[in-house]
């Protein structure tokens, strides 16, 4: 609550800062402000006011929402810290971009703390519209325009589905309030459009997390958007969407039927396989990470099979995935900043040119592939172990085979960095210290969380 208000006021301040000519100080001020918000969010931790709702029972702060909000704030700090250099050429719009990122954060926080479906829809729209703008933010770049347009058209279609679903749920139950809907769904006698509405909302969310077969927009949008926006989409947006999906699934009906679980199994295996197999053939790194993101969505969906442990597993998986994503994208932005595209050849010889950055990119890829001491390993392991517990060994085996496939493309990049020589000598990766700082910090966090998984897994206890 206080968190949301302070972030919004920070966003408004960013817009006003233009008037007072504070552009140069904007990023430091915002980062400090967000750190303060992080402090507030952590301070609220000890008070579990899950029953206490705010905004006339629109939102509630509980452990789940504050854990994910903390992750979102952390990611936004990293993303905004990188903006300073990234938007150097867009001086006039600089404060707008920062403000949009902050509004995006408010949308994400609203999505994990809603108690009313109206608030949920508001959150998802605030988030989505911010991302549409950011995707198309390079106005003179055709690819960026294309990405923004595609994302907007398909994204608003998905929003339409969600809205339609919410209407059906309202028609069936007579409530927007999640608590009331939950109570009603426990009983019998809900009309048939209740499950239809729920299915429509979930399909809309599957579109947002980019699970197959709703993934077709992802590669083009990821490739065309400015790299920092791609980083935002693949970390913050995806994480927010999957957390919301959990909140919805657990709120609509705790007793997931046998059939629904089968659908999750199919979508999970399909996403993992399509994402990984397609990623093998990509030359453009952003496209490759887009497909890798689809496969990670499949992994995260696996958590829903054991709904009792899903919140914990998702929190840890999203931590691991988002931190690895941030450090990988920091290096990618640094290397491809002054390049025409993000093809893998641009990374040739990075191991010799800047060993630290190459090591961090390698470590983030290893984390995504699930190699121990990086948090990605425990994330996958907890998923596997909890899925085995409920008896879905087939999904786990599919996950294992997919992990092996994923080595194929992650290592393509690692091999390029360490075994190939760079072609042109005059080229050097942009040496902006802020990218290195972000990459090192997020990798350090990744390893700390990997060595002490309890740091994250205990948050929800």
């Amino acid at each position, binding site marked *: 609550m206080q968190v949301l208000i302070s972030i919004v006021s920070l966003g408004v301040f960013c817009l006003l800062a233009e008037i007072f000519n504070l552009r140069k100080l904007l990023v430091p001020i915002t980062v400090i402000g967000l750190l303060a918000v992080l402090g507030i969010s952590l301070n609220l931790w000890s008070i579990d006011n899950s029953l206490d709702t705010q905004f006339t029972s629109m939102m509630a702060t509980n452990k789940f929402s504050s854990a994910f909000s903390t992750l979102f704030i952390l990611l936004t700090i990293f993303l905004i810290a990188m903006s300073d250099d990234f938007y150097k050429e867009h001086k006039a719009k600089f404060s707008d971009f920062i403000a949009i990122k902050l509004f995006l954060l408010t949308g994400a926080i609203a999505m994990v703390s809603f108690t009313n479906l109206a608030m949920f829809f508001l959150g998802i729209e605030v988030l989505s519209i911010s991302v549409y703008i950011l995707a198309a933010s390079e106005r003179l770049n055709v690819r960026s325009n294309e990405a923004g347009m595609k994302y907007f058209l398909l994204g608003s279609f998905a929003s339409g589905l969600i809205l339609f679903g919410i209407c059906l749920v309202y028609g069936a139950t007579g409530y927007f309030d999640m608590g009331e809907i939950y109570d009603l769904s426990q009983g019998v006698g809900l009309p048939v459009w209740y499950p239809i509405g729920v299915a429509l909302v979930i399909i809309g969310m599957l579109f947002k997390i980019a699970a197959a077969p709703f993934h077709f927009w992802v590669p083009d949008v990821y490739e065309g958007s400015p790299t920092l926006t791609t980083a935002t989409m693949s970390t913050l947006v995806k994480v927010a969407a999957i957390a919301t999906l959990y909140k919805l699934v657990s709120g609509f009906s705790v007793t997931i039927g046998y059939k629904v679980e089968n659908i999750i199994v199919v979508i999970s295996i399909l996403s993992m396989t399509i994402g990984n197999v397609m990623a093998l053939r990509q030359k453009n790194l952003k496209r490759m990470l887009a497909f890798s993101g689809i496969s990670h969505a499949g992994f995260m969906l696996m958590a829903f099979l054991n709904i009792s442990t899903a919140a914990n597993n998702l929190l840890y998986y999203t931590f691991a995935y988002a931190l690895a994503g941030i450090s990988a994208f920091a290096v990618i932005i640094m290397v491809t900043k002054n390049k025409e595209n993000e093809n893998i050849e641009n990374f040739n010889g990075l191991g010799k040119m800047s060993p630290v950055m190459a090591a961090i990119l390698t470590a983030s890829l290893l984390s995504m592939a699930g190699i121990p001491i990086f948090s990605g390993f*425990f994330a996958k392991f907890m998923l596997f172990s909890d899925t085995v517990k409920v008896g879905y*060994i087939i999904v786990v085996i599919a996950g294992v085979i997919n992990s092996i496939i994923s080595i194929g493309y992650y290592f393509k990049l690692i091999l390029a960095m*360490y075994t190939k020589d760079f072609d042109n000598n005059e080229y050097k990766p942009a040496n902006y210290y802020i990218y290195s700082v972000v990459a090192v910090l997020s990798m350090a966090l990744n390893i700390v969380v990997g060595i002490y998984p309890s740091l994250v897994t205990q948050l929800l206890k």
Partner: protein
Amino acid sequence: MNITTLLILLLTGAIITLISGDKLASKVALLFSLVAFGFSLNLLLQFNQGTNISFISNWIDNPKVAFALKADGLSMAMVLLTTALTPLIILSSFGNSFNNSKNFYALVLFMAFAMTGTFLAADGLLYYVFWELALIPIYFIALIWGNGDVDERKKAVVKFFIYTLAGSLFMLVGFAYLYSKAGSFLLEDLYKLELSHSEQFWIFFAFFLAYAIKIPIIPFHTWQAKVYQKAPTVGTMLLSGIMLKMGLYSVIRWQLPIAPDAAKEYMPVLIGLSIAGVVYGSIVALRQKDLKKLLAYSSLAHVGLIAAGCYTLTADGLNGAVYQMIAHGFVIVGLFFAAEVIFRRFETRKIKELGGIRSQASRFTSMFMILVLASVALPGTYNFVGEFTVLYSLSQVNLWFAVFGGTTIILGAYYMLKMFQNVMLGETNPKVFAEVNLNEAIVFITIIGFLLFFGLYPKPINDLVNPAIKEILAVINR
């Protein structure tokens, strides 16, 4: 003082090597590996006095994972093998110069750290973490500092990585399943599990994939020869001397006691596959033109015999397997080093281009000769003790196993002596072959001294290993 200190020591060693700079790196690494060796000797002393050097503490609450390190005779023997070979391997590399040597030596020490951890871990997940961790340094060592064409090397190393990771991931699923049954990863809890027949089969199979690829057992060996050939000699030594022992050790420690019924049921198949590796490796070795590849296939044959010893499930078989693991570790490091010594002088590993070295370097010739004889298990060397015990145990199971397993000695003698003849003897080579220098001599003499001493007096190792094997057998036959 407990065994955790040893791990911390090796890890700090790796970090200090990394920051010590390229010039000092090799010496710092050598120093730390020697200290680690001294420390593990000290641990052995404490262990023999009966001091408790094990360590256990809670690591993760959910899933319940403990940071549990346990030392018994078997672990101690493997840890000593690791810490004794590491300084030898580092010293053996002093004649080479590496780009970025600080990274190289840091990776070597890091690998020693991970392998030591694998041998000590008494918690399934911790063990898995160390097991996977050991894979990363060897991947980079072979990839970056390897020899030969880059593209070919890349292919070989990536194949190796994907193979091993694939195997390990199935082991991970096995562990996940065991955890859902036992509610803990601790070794002792897993030993207590009563698994049904089909459960045992699947667990055994999942573990078998991981170990058969690592050891390697036919038909999972296809990665091996290429990687041994392409990796730098230090990497080859680490792989063949210590890393494949991780697989064999794990068979004894994890696979057999957790799924004993499956092991008993499939014993003929398992021993058959292992022995097939012996025969296959020996025959392929006969036809090799590259010195390093020949040694790689001879290694395949020898570990096949060790694996066969493990799967007999008899006290002799398991004891003999452990003896032979130690003996093979030393002798294969020595042989690969001899190949490296020749390469340093003649810049070739093609057997055809060698020859006529004996008259130029008599000391090197005699040391190489002893190593060759040790590898074919001549009585008086420690390899004889190991191979003989294993062959004896095989004959107890089925005489034919022993007959085919024995080909490792007969064929081994044939290809090793033929190789020796072609490489060392013959008309004096026109190229100059300098006699071994001090560093090289130290490595050879240490290895030979070890093999001869324990060949004549194997009792200390027997006393260390036998009680631990007895305990494990008690679990297997529960």
